[in-house]
């Protein structure tokens, strides 16, 4: 039997004897500084995770404030429309820049990507730590802007409102988004290089788990699109501070130019959010169906296709802004093209269930919730890509509902699903699956009550970003707010089930769900340098060699039966 050496540079270290019982990346070194200055991708991933979850809590509180204010037309909990405007602006800015964009790549991706590759770390560990501290700096600036007068521009910072508003926190928050952009670029750069250079021998491009394909496609968008946002925000800061007219028509600038610049980044950014989510779903569905993913190549290529299309559809945010009819027509036509690879992915996931062996674990429930929510989020994109209906629906609650189905119902639900999928791997503890599943259902129901109602609100003509509204809309707003409270309750339950695992959870086996990719081959939690013995690369979606082990309460992989690991085993596998 040949052993494939560890792919990272340096000599192969087989440290199995040197490693005492219970030694893992969490316990390998101790003390605060061992975390603050860590170069370990796993610890950086964990720090990212807690930070992002903290930001999610903050953004969630603002969302609840917004929903509560909308319980009645006119004042409900604040007399001041400006306060309300700051709430929804903060909710949007925090959720987009601090939570959803970094959540999957930087938090889960950082942890899982090198382990999945069988590598010891990402290509540039120091850059990785630096990108985390850039995130922290961005988060601090974002919160500091509150103390400096807040900002009421909406998360899109549309000019000339953003360059003329008297709110004092605009420049700090623009700087925050600028800094966060660099954090995102560095993560992307790191992942591109890692995937190119640190794949182990035997793991060709089409042997990579689909999560890696998704992270790779995402990383390319991060590297290519984010600089445009950086430059745009810098120009905005310049305009606001030294009055150089770039976007403000009063100084000879053009506000529509800003919208083009902004969406040239922010539309691809939607795919920075959704592509890694799709990757997670591919993993969860394949692992929990215990069968090879249906149409691997179609899924992999559709990730790349979506990444490419994402760059040429930004104009569909501006159908009513004064773009020429010709441009509108072109952007409408191209926007529809995104629907095709997205539909292909959904069909492939469903086909993966066909003749599978479906285990309804908590992560699987999240994946099924994703399938439903993403289908609705994607299909309502048709209403908005269509020219004549977009004119009616643009800037109404229909758009709000649509992007929440995609960004929260899909990206964030996948993130929570991924968190449940890899939680045993990350912390070495099993959570209460029954509680986790119930929480998933409550979030799912609450989500639909909140946001499906908003589709109706929007198509009936309720504009977004309204502090006050016509009394006939109240019933919908009340239902939507009740849904948001339900969802909040679901998230609290999720937190109880996950945190509970630290106190009452059983020790996690190395492979609790029966996964085949490399991260399930190291212990839970992984050792400091990920693999005690050099991992062997097999077919990451061949589950015929995965067996249940009653003793550990998990699965084990009979690698000797996999002909790709052990060429002599062809007969044994065929016999299964």
């Amino acid at each position, binding site marked *: 039997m040949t052993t494939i050496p560890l792919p990272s540079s340096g000599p192969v270290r087989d440290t199995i004897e040197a490693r005492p019982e219970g030694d893992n990346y969490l316990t390998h070194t101790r003390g605060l500084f061992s975390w603050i200055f860590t170069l370990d991708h796993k610890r950086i991933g964990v720090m990212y995770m807690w930070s992002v979850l903290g930001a999610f809590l903050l953004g969630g509180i603002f969302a609840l404030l917004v929903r509560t204010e909308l319980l009645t037309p006119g004042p409900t909990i604040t007399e001041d429309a400006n306060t309300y405007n700051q709430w929804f602006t903060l909710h949007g800015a925090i959720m987009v820049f601090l939570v959803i964009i970094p959540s999957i790549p930087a938090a889960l991706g950082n942890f899982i990507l090198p382990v999945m590759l069988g590598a010891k770390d990402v290509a540039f560990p120091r850059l990785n730590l630096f990108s985390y501290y850039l995130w922290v700096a961005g988060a601090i600036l974002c919160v500091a802007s509150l103390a400096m007068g807040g900002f009421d521009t909406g998360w899109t910072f549309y000019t000339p409102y953003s360059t003329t508003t008297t709110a004092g926190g605009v420049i700090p928050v623009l700087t925050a988004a600028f800094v966060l952009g660099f954090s995102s670029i560095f993560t992307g750069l790191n992942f591109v290089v890692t995937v190119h250079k640190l794949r182990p021998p035997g793991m060709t491009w089409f042997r990579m788990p689909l999560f890696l394909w998704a992270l790779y496609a995402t990383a390319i968008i991060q590297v290519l699109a984010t600089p445009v946002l950086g430059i745009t925000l810098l120009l905005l800061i310049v305009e606001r501070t030294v009055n150089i007219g770039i976007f403000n028509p009063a100084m000879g600038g053009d506000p529509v130019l800003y919208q083009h610049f902004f969406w040239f980044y922010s539309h691809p950014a939607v795919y920075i959010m959704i592509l890694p989510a799709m990757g997670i779903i591919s993993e969860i569905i394949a692992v929990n169906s215990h069968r090879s993913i249906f149409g*691997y190549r179609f899924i992999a290529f559709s990730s790349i296709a979506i990444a490419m299309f994402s760059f040429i559809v930004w104009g569909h945010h501006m159908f009513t802004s004064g773009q020429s009819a010709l441009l509108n027509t072109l952007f409408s036509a191209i926007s529809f093209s995104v629907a095709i690879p997205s*539909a292909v992915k959904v069909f492939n996931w469903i086909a993966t269930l066909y*003749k599978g062996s479906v285990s309804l674990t908590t992560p699987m429930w999240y994946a099924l919730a994703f399938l439903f929510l993403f289908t609705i989020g994607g299909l309502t994109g048709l209403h908005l890509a269509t020219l004549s209906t977009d004119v009616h629906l643009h800037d109404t609650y229909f758009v709000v509902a649509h992007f929440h189905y995609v960004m929260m119902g899909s990206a964030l639900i996948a993130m929570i699903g991924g968190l449940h999928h890899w939680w045993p791997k990350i912390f070495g503890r099993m959570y209460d699956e029954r509680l986790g599943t119930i929480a998933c259902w409550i979030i799912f129901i609450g989500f639909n009550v909140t946001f499906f109602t908003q589709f109706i609100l929007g198509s009936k003509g309720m504009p977004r970003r309204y502090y006050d509204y016509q009394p006939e809309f109240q019933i919908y707003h009340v239902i939507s707010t009740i849904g948001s409270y339900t969802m909040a309750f679901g998230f609290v339950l999720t937190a109880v089930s996950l945190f509970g695992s630290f106190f009452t959870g059983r020790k996690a086996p190395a492979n609790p769900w029966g996964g085949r990719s490399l991260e399930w081959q190291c212990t839970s939690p992984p050792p400091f340098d990920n693999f005690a013995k050099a991992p062997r690369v097999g077919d990451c979606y061949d589950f015929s060699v995965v067996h249940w082990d009653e003793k550990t309460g998990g699965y084990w992989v009979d690698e000797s039966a996999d002909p790709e690991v052990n060429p002599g085993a062809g007969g044994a596998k065929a016999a299964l």
Partner: protein
Amino acid sequence: MSMTSQIISHAASKASALAVLAQSGAQSGAQSAAQSGAAPGPTAPTFWMPTGASTISGGVDHTLDVINWICYFFVALVVGLTVYFVVKYRHRKGERFRTDFPHHNTPLEVTWSIIPTIIVIGIFVVGFRSYLDIYTAPKNAFDIKVTAQKWAWNFQYPNGATSDDLYVPAGRPVRLILRSSDVLHSLYIPDFRVKRDIVPGRYSYAWFQCDYPSGQPGKNPRDPNAKKVEGPEDPAQVYNLHCTEYCGSGHSKMNRYVYVLDEASFSQWMIDQSQWLDKIPEEELFFKAGPKLFARCQQCHSLDGSQGIGPSWQGIVERVKAYPNVGDGKKYGTWEDYVRTSILVPGDYVVPGYGNVMPSFKGQLNDKSVDALIGYMEHLSDFDPKTGKYLKADAAK
């Protein structure tokens, strides 16, 4: 411009060849109303849509219906298959994993790539055709100039009349020439399915045609003495008009109404509207014109001392008289000077604690209007601060 329209019409003729799905709806909505002359009335609200009252609303709603049914079908398909597979292939602990599954199936995968492609091309064509109706205003359209500002609308008619609500003739295309005097705004009339962003420094157009007269001919249905805008006497008779591009604290207050009058009433209304101020004698100005003009100020200023975007008008005369200069020490002559300057050049005197956000009303309010507002302020104690009613109305008669 003409080149663009040429390209569009060329594209349209090409598109029509593709338009298998577009056969029926897109134009029929627009044409049926025109052909049958006086249609019975606006379409009733549905589960999804509000009242449809313009000539294009039928086409838009039809497009939306087509897309909705496609969505219902696919959601049912996805949910049905998912539930069926999950139930049927549910795995129980200890069981062997199935191995008889297909890894891929190229013909199937190609099929489910091509079918969505055909469907989205169809939707695009339907949407494109009804969009052309929305985009291109007919040549004989009646022009109304619209100025949006933080946080009010001003509609200006060809004879010079201006109004805060939009009045339009029925049965005739109306073209709105939109401009903004500060930040981005967007004009949205849900019942007409019309929306257009208003970009400062640019003119843009929106157009619609409503064939159903409504409202009270020749008369402002709103009680000019009412403090709070409660809306028209019969809300079913008018259409809402919103701002849909976020523009600051008064964004959600930029709601007005659209009154559709028959051709004759509309002409009469325009004449009355252009002369209403001139017809009021000087001594009656403050209680006849003042409250009506104040309707535009009340988005930001209250009469009863309550907090607003701008300072309340309660006791304003005494306050101004008491301090011959504002916070930054700038002096003003008489209190009338202060008020006049604040209306025409608001940035000159900014009350401490408030932002410099008031737009200028230069060109919108003439001398007589300003006099009316000054008189109104002077006699504020004669008005009920809650309802805005003139308390000495009987005495005046």
